[in-house]
């Protein structure tokens, strides 16, 4: 009887069944199928993102006719231009100011929403999200109409209460103000939603413990809310920085870089130079100036997200 402990049978090591041809076995393998399923994705990402990305770098190093290699000449040319220096300034100013505003207002809104009962939250959220839902190009069109030099409804209201009309898009600083305002209007709902979701995930007991310890409302914010939300805040801010930095729609429709090229940003300037003027390599060079910022922000976002998934367990 085969009772008892281990018995080493005298069978030869595995009666190997007849093997199918190597190709058929490879096809039948689970991991092969996985690879095939991911192939369309690889094709899309490889062919339409990675390849153009590299191609952009190659383009930026060529001359206007794309016949020969000129090294970093395009970049040098750009940096000499006053317009381009303004582009750098404008992009940074726009991105940083808008993101800071969006984060603060979004954060405040999230707190306000968190204060009201959950059932009512849905209704308020429904309305507050609308700026994000309307396609940006179309809502920017409305803003353009609202800022129109002759017909501005805002100016009408200002006049009504005795203030002078504002040259919304006619003056560089006012134009910048308008752009930041529109972007803030558009992007704040996103921050609000993200922060609201994060606020809900903070355990109520932490606040209760802080209250028992004697913390005031402000202290609770500093000692409980901000530390718990640190990860979400950094991820959303970095992500928004990238997106705002690379913004095209608002600039193009509101000012198209005007007045007098003072409000151009990388995207619109690249468009003007590359597509409208036809100097493709120079346009590519303009776009590529965004790369360092994108790379740094992406790196931190990725780190933040992997950190987050580690915290989750």
């Amino acid at each position, binding site marked *: 009887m085969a009772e008892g402990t281990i018995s080493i049978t005298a069978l030869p090591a595995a009666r190997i069944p007849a093997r199918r041809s190597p190709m058929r076995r490879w096809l039948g393998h*689970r*991991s092969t*199928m996985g*690879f095939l*399923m991911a192939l*369309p*994705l690889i094709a*899309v*990402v490889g062919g*339409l*993102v990675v*390849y*153009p*990305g590299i*191609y952009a770098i190659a*383009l930026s190093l060529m001359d206007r006719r794309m016949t020969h290699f000129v090294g970093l000449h395009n970049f040098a040319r750009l940096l000499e231009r006053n317009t381009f220096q303004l582009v750098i300034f404008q992009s940074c100013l726009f991105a940083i100011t808008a993101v800071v505003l969006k984060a603060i207002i979004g954060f405040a*809104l999230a707190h*306000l929403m968190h*204060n*009201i009962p959950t059932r009512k939250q*849905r209704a308020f*959220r*429904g*309305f507050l*999200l*609308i*700026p994000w*839902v*309307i*396609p*940006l190009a*179309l*809502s920017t*069109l*409305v803003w353009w*109409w609202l800022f129109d030099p002759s*017909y501005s409804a805002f100016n*009408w209201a200002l006049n009504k209460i005795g203030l002078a009309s504002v040259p919304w898009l006619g003056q560089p600083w006012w134009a910048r103000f308008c752009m930041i305002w529109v972007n803030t*209007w558009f992007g704040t709902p*996103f921050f609000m*939603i*993200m922060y609201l*979701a994060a606020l809900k995930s903070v355990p109520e007991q932490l606040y209760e413990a802080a209250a028992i310890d004697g913390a005031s409302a402000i202290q609770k914010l500093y000692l409980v809310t901000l530390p718990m939300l640190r990860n979400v805040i950094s991820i959303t801010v970095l*992500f928004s920085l990238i997106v705002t*930095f*690379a913004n*095209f729609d608002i600039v193009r429709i509101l000012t198209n870089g005007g007045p007098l090229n003072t409000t151009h940003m*990388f*995207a619109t300037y*690249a*468009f003007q130079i*590359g597509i409208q003027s036809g100097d493709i390599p120079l346009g*590519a060079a303009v*776009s590529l100036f965004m*790369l360092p910022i994108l790379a740094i922000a*992406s790196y931190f*976002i*990725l780190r933040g997200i992997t950190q*987050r998934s580690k*915290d989750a367990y």
Partner: protein
Amino acid sequence: MSTASAIAAAPPSARRRHASLARQRRWALWGSYAALAVFILMFLVPPFYMLMTSLKSSAEISAQTGNPWIVHHPTLQNFIYLIHYPPFRRYFWNSVWVTACVVTVSMVISVLAAFSLARIKFWGSNTLATGVFLTYLIPESLLFIPLFQVLGALGLINSAACLVLVFPTLAVPFCTWIMIGYFSSIPKELDEAALIDGASWMQILLKIFIPVAFPGIIAATIFAFTISWGDFLYPLAYLYTANQMTLTVGIISDLIRGDVFEWGKIMAAALMAAAPPVLVYAFLMDYYVAGLTAGATKG
């Protein structure tokens, strides 16, 4: 001792404090409502004005008498004009079929890839997953110039079909990311039970993963739809003839002719163009929000 009797038995100063605590909370609540209402008003200014303007005749707009914030002689003229205006119908139709194709293509690619990346480990799958996410962070304003060359070489410039090729780059990374999150949360035993029941991997995907992760599919589809419907840069860069244009480009490039700004019509057009995403949002708001938060909060 119940709270009420505790309060009643407490000294007068404590009672005052407790009463003011309750009042404080009520103030906070109503203050929040008020502040939120103010924000809602501010947020809804543009859509409201869009609606108002779209109901005004050109005469009323250029006359500039009275309060521009309300419409004095409402008319549906603008809408009627646009509905019968062939170029506008063309833009709408182009947006529709391009978006339909893009959404289909993007969802197929994303779902297949997400299933593979979430469940099947193959060589390089982790790198690919990270790479997909990084792709999402690459803005279109970086890619549109080299893509211009690529599309030119393929002979697709000035053809709406080029958008079907290019828009998926905007949708697929994020949709894949969302779906990976949803698919990963399905317990592995479900796969194993299905394997033993006799399902092939394709059947597991179609009969189990997709139904169970359906909210994720809806969220991802909404995202792909919204991105494809509202994109402006790519159509502006690649489409020049009116009969190829989608709504965003069409309205902005075409309806705004020279110095004659027919704002009533423009706003009406913008309203009709903004309607589909807003309607999708209105009916599927919870999925919309789930899609938004899925990216960054699903660790």
